[in-house]
């Protein structure tokens, strides 16, 4: 009976937290949508300029402004944007005439696998290597991993991309230097070949920083009282780490993973440029250059959504891994 009440209390706490966390997610999204509408309009210049040549007449300038809607009052533009958000229909680009939602979806078909591929690969490398670096912290191997990961953090991602292109595409000719197949994912093999170097680029840079986090979190756990107590009670080092260490080390790392994933998603633009991939980042860069408000707003809204959701999922997993968070005020507020 007591046990049942305990479970239901925990369930109540969880659903209460979930409700509040979801409400905060929606509030953040609403605030972000207003903010990004304003920020986009604060950009100096006029989207009409993207359509004009150096020999345009004043009548053509006026026509271009009408075409892109930059002659419409700001409040009217804002109401239009809110209406679009309500239906998740970002409208048409005034410059290219394309349906923004469909265009974002087709770009996500490249950026999402690129980001997730790099992320998962980095995780596969960083977790064992980071653990090893902590477990052998005082040996030459631990020091070497520590230094290498530090070096990896210092390397700019585009430089890694350039080096990989030089070696694997230009010198060895194993993989394409850039681009994506004409028929996209219908040519699955070619599509994967196109993404291998970009994914590797992201994975190399990301695994360097993740290794540092895993190493640091593991070192904290190794030196903790509960591991010492477990060992004193007769548990082997491996068993103590498995039963008590893993969960404790995982909690802070999960939090970092959420941030890293979001940062990589946003930062994929650099890799997309280096490898000429038609992803979300390159769409945004071009849209900003052209002041294509419809596209900029759509892309930024989706990016914000991805960032907020990855934070939410990271929090959720963190609470599942570490139930102590549920009992703390910090845990509620997280």
């Amino acid at each position, binding site marked *: 009976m007591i046990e049942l009440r305990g479970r239901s209390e925990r369930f109540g706490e969880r659903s209460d937290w979930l409700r509040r966390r979801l409400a905060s997610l929606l509030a953040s999204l609403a605030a972000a949508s207003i903010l990004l509408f304003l920020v986009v309009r604060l950009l*100096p*210049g*006029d989207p009409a*300029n*993207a359509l*004009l*040549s*150096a*020999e*345009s*007449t*004043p*009548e*053509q*300038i006026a*026509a*271009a402004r009408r*075409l892109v809607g930059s002659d419409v009052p700001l409040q009217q533009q804002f109401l239009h944007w809110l209406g679009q958000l309500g239906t998740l229909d970002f409208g048409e680009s005034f*410059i*290219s*005439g*394309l349906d923004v939602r469909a*265009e974002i*979806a*087709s*770009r996500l*078909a490249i950026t*999402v696998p690129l980001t*997730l*591929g790099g992320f*998962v690969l980095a995780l596969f490398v960083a977790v064992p290597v980071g653990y090893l670096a902590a477990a052998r912290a005082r040996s030459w191997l631990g020091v070497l991993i520590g230094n290498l990961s530090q070096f990896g953090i210092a390397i700019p991602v585009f430089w890694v991309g*350039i080096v990989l292109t030089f070696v694997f*595409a*230009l010198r060895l000719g*194993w993989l*394409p*230097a*850039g*681009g*994506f197949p*004409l028929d*996209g*994912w219908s040519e*699955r*093999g*070619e599509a*994967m*070949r196109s*993404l*291998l170097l970009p*994914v590797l680029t992201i994975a190399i840079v990301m695994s360097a920083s993740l290794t540092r986090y895993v190493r640091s979190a593991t070192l904290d756990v190794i030196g903790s009282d509960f591991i010492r107590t477990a060992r004193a009670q007769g548990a082997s080092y491996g068993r103590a780490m498995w039963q008590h260490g893993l969960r404790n080390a995982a909690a802070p790392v999960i939090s970092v993973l959420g941030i890293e994933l979001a940062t990589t998603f946003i930062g994929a633009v650099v890799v997309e*440029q*280096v490898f*000429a991939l*038609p992803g979300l980042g*390159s*769409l945004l*860069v*071009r849209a900003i*250059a052209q002041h294509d408000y419809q596209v900029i707003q759509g892309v930024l809204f989706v990016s914000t959504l991805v960032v907020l959701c990855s934070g939410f999922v990271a929090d959720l997993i963190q609470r599942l891994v570490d139930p102590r968070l549920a009992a703390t005020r910090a845990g509620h507020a997280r």
Partner: protein
Amino acid sequence: MKPTKSIVRATIALLTGALAFGISAPAFAASTTDATINIGSLYEPQNLDNTGGGGQGVTEALNGNVYESLFKLNDSGKLTNLLAKSYKISADGLTYTITLRSGVKFHSGKALTSDDVKFSLSKVTAADSLSARKSAFTVVSSVATPDANTVVIKLSNRSISLIYNLSYVWILNSAATDFKTKADGTGPYTFGNWVHGSTIKLDRFAGYWGPKAKNKSVVFHYFTDATALNNALLTGAVDVITSVQSPDALASFKGTKFKITNGKSTTKLLLVFNDRVAPFNNVLVRKAVSSAIDDAKLLKSIWGNYGQVIGSMVPPTDPWYINLNKVNPYNVTLAKKLLAKAGLAKGFTFTLDTPNYDPHPAAAAFIKSELAKVGITVNINVITADEWYTRVFKKTDYVATLQEHVNDRDVVWYGNPDFYWGYNNQDVTAWVNQAEQATSAAKQTTLLKKVNRKIAEDAASDWIYLYPQIVVASSKVSGYPLNGLNSQFFAYNIVKK
């Protein structure tokens, strides 16, 4: 496939298959006429409408390939009939009767008629048209279509450039409604598909009225990074680069696997003075600045042995070209004398609004160091392309700026006192108008040569150099255009071994 499913599948495919996936050589096209030609470019269209701000990229990909005009400006700058079978000009020069070629069909299957020509002209001259050639057609007073094969264009004044200007008017299907994302032309290729941010594919049109394209399809691959574009040619992902913008890259294309060609360009780099405001409202100051800058040295530093110094706005491909390099020669002593004569012996300071993309920042730094030698201080103000349009071009709120002008025959803009550089010479304005109404090409050429010389004598701007037009291609392909005048790139003659 729905977008969400596509993303999920793509992710799963990558995560599950990447490690197990073997590396294989890319597929290679077989015979010549079945070949797919891969063209690398930095200029992706903004949309497919050349009267709706499609930009340079839409001309490159579609002009002459998907869309055709009544007349064609070929790669060497010569005008020939295309969809026009023949034309007659009335004795007073005010009526043009054009007979259309028969048997021409749009890709959608509809036959070409005179109504399509009338519609296409009206699209260029419409109130919402953003065509760079719109003002050239203000002289057209009416367009009649007495029968399906005849178009009669009446003018309010003579216009010797009408045929030339018509070579920029794409003949559209009058039944079409979407010109931004779809293309239905009469050219040797149908518009295949456009993966935005990546590629445009054109396929050979089986029902083409003329000689069929010599390749099966053409894919324009778009890059935002010049290095990535060069790598694509080095690895065989593209067969030809339409216009190399970085001479440094040429070193990597040495050897027998690639061919580098140096064609004719119409793009000029200008140091534009605002001729309305001091000190550049003084011709002596403009001439002094022009003589103080070693244009040849700047050209060499940016383009090596490519490109040309022409001393005026007119490139050698225009009929009214004359070499005017001696009018304002590079001569520091002369520059100092001219400054003294203008009462500015101690020099002066001005702000140079410099677009933030190549080659403008490098050119600005060079100009700054050259002008320092005659006591002129240059404050370089780096601006975005957008600010350039808003402040410099529209509001003419600037003292001096750098800009590239890409079109041929654009010396006529010096006849418009309202243009952003504010050059106002009544003789030049009259000559430009008279040239347009000339009764023969010889008279037109004589008048525009006078314009050319006069603007050089007045140093209306400083024409720093004419860009080179460098095409680099795999030695396996041939038949590509070398000059790419006005950004056009005809693909139908390209063959691959």
